[in-house]
């Protein structure tokens, strides 16, 4: 499961030894996040975001459990109970803002974490299952965030529930029955709110379980690194603790400073003001938009405006939106280049940044009303999104002339910093990049 030079756990006290023979929990943590996990020594700041995502989940669970003590999942009083939390519950405003801003930040760090994986080829063998488990977590997060947003029972909550469950009505034959089944009625109502509350409470713990699998799958091959080259010897690694625990705590400090700035000074800047209007089933807000972290997918959904190939526009939009994520499960087999890191793939690196821009601009389109030029732009970018994965990447990974890889992680590190560290005494290393 780990490298042969990994430090072995040695209980230091009699109690520790007694426990280790019965339930080796400390040994488990030692090997997972402690000195027993040898980690590539060249990880940069982008490798901090997995830990940050874990912290973000813990913040959501803690604040969420506390909010649930004051919230009432009933359409008659749900909105008022949220206002009760904001105005009457001691410190309730802070807990709710932490939970709402925390959701945005959770997605923010997860998006950086995903793009980190894309850039350094962390989805490639032998980490395909690790990648796919990450996507499962991402899908669960999306479901959880959506249902949590509905609980507020404001206008955006209600109409978001209407639109998202309406996606399933696009399916032929069984669509309407599925929508009715999901809602527990013919429109979002008390049954819907109650089941969403139940599932919103459950799913974070499911996410926690999948994260354990994700970390397990990470520890089989060990972490990838910015060179994408496999660990070859002990010289390539440092123990996770204290090296990366210390580094991750620095990143965590920065994260919490930015998080606090949002919670305390601009808590509503990431949300939609319309959700402070109580839900009204007889009036649609003029402009229904999800939270920012769903915008790129919302843009893909709305990009299909005409029927073609005998399939209605609505079904196209729904299929495209779901496949835009499901497609990522196939990524390890679409990108066949043996070189992992884009640092050594000049063309692929350029295309990565084009893809980042496409994803961000799709997000901008998704946040705008369904008008020109946003609809046309969404259509072009949606086409590019799919072309990137289905056409461009497979071809580029076959044809691209990659740069020579360093012989090892140590060699790459020494080439960059070696002469400085050794005071110029070291022989001039070959530049590897």
């Amino acid at each position, binding site marked *: 499961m780990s490298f042969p030079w990994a430090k072995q756990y040695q209980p230091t006290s009699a109690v520790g030894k007694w426990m280790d023979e019965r339930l080796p929990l400390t040994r488990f943590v030692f090997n997972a996040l402690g000195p027993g996990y040898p980690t590539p020594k060249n990880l940069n700041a982008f490798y901090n975001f997995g830990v940050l995502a874990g912290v973000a989940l813990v913040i959501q669970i803690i604040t969420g459990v506390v909010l649930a003590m004051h919230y009432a999942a009933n359409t008659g009083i749900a909105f008022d109970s949220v206002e009760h939390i904001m105005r009457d519950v001691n410190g309730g405003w802070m807990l709710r803002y932490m939970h709402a801003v925390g959701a945005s930040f959770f997605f923010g760090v997860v998006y950086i974490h995903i793009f980190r994986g894309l850039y350094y080829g962390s989805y490639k063998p032998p980490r395909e299952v690790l990648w796919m488990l990450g996507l499962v977590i991402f899908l669960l997060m999306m479901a959880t965030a959506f249902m949590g947003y509905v609980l507020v029972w404001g206008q955006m909550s209600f109409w978001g529930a*209407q*639109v998202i469950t309406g*996606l399933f009505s696009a399916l032929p034959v069984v669509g309407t029955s599925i929508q009715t089944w999901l809602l527990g009625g013919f429109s979002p*109502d008390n049954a819907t709110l109650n089941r969403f509350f139940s599932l919103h409470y459950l799913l974070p713990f499911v996410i926690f379980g999948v994260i354990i699998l994700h970390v397990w799958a990470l520890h089989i091959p060990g972490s990838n690194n910015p060179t994408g080259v496999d660990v070859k010897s002990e010289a390539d690694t440092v123990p996770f603790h204290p090296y990366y625990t210390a580094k991750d705590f620095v990143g965590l400090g920065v994260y919490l400073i930015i998080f606090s700035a949002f919670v305390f000074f601009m808590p509503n800047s990431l949300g939609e003001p319309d959700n402070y209007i109580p839900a009204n*089933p007889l009036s649609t807000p003029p402009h229904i938009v999800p939270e920012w972290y769903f915008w790129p997918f919302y843009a893909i959904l709305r990009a*299909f*405006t005409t029927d073609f190939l005998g399939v209605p526009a609505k079904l196209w939009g729904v299929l495209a939106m779901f496949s835009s994520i499901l497609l990522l499960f196939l990524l390890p087999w679409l990108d066949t280049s043996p070189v992992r890191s884009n640092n050594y793939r000049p063309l692929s690196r350029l295309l990565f940044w084009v893809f980042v821009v496409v994803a961000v601009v799709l997000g901008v389109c998704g946040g705008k009303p369904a*008008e020109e030029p946003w609809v046309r732009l969404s259509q072009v970018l949606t086409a590019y999104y799919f072309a990137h994965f289905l056409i461009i990447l497979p071809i580029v990974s076959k044809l691209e002339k990659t740069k020579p890889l360093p012989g090892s992680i140590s060699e790459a590190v020494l080439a960059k910093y070696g002469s400085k560290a050794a005071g110029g005494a070291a022989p001039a290393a070959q530049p590897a990049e």
Partner: protein
Amino acid sequence: MASDVRQTAADDLAPGGERRRDFLYVATAAFAGAGVVPVAWSLVNQMNPSADVLALASVDLDLSSVQPGQAIKASWRGKPIFARQLTPDEIAAAKKVDISTLRDPQKLEDRTKPGNEQWLITLGVCTHLGCVPLGAAEGESRGDFGGYFCPCHGSHYDTAARVRKGPAPKNLEVPPYTFKSPTSVTIG
């Protein structure tokens, strides 16, 4: 006694390779499956609309205050209902359309009751993703075809509430209803 006890599983092997114990496995699995299926179905079916939700099935509407060109909104099964009295011009406009050009071909006659053709009663639920279209209340946009306009994703409906433009796949749904008197209907 010992000679009566079968020593190995091979003793059970019939010429076809089947063991008598296979029957026990199949019977056990079948018995367990017969128990699991109804329980699983109950767990799935509990999410369908409950009896009290289904009981709110019909609603009475008084149309006496609705002038030609006006509409009222009501709520049925938690969904909005638009009841609109069409003007003669609107009826003529709806009839003039060649239905073969429509995405969801229906005549005005298919969408109203005989003798009450001026009463256009539909769900106020866009068939795209379920928003409430504009056009029922005074002063709201009625779209490019004078009927209803859904602001969410830009679907336009004509004066028979048929989809003419935008992503919606179907015309606005006509709920089941009957006229109790010339100015009142029961929906559902």
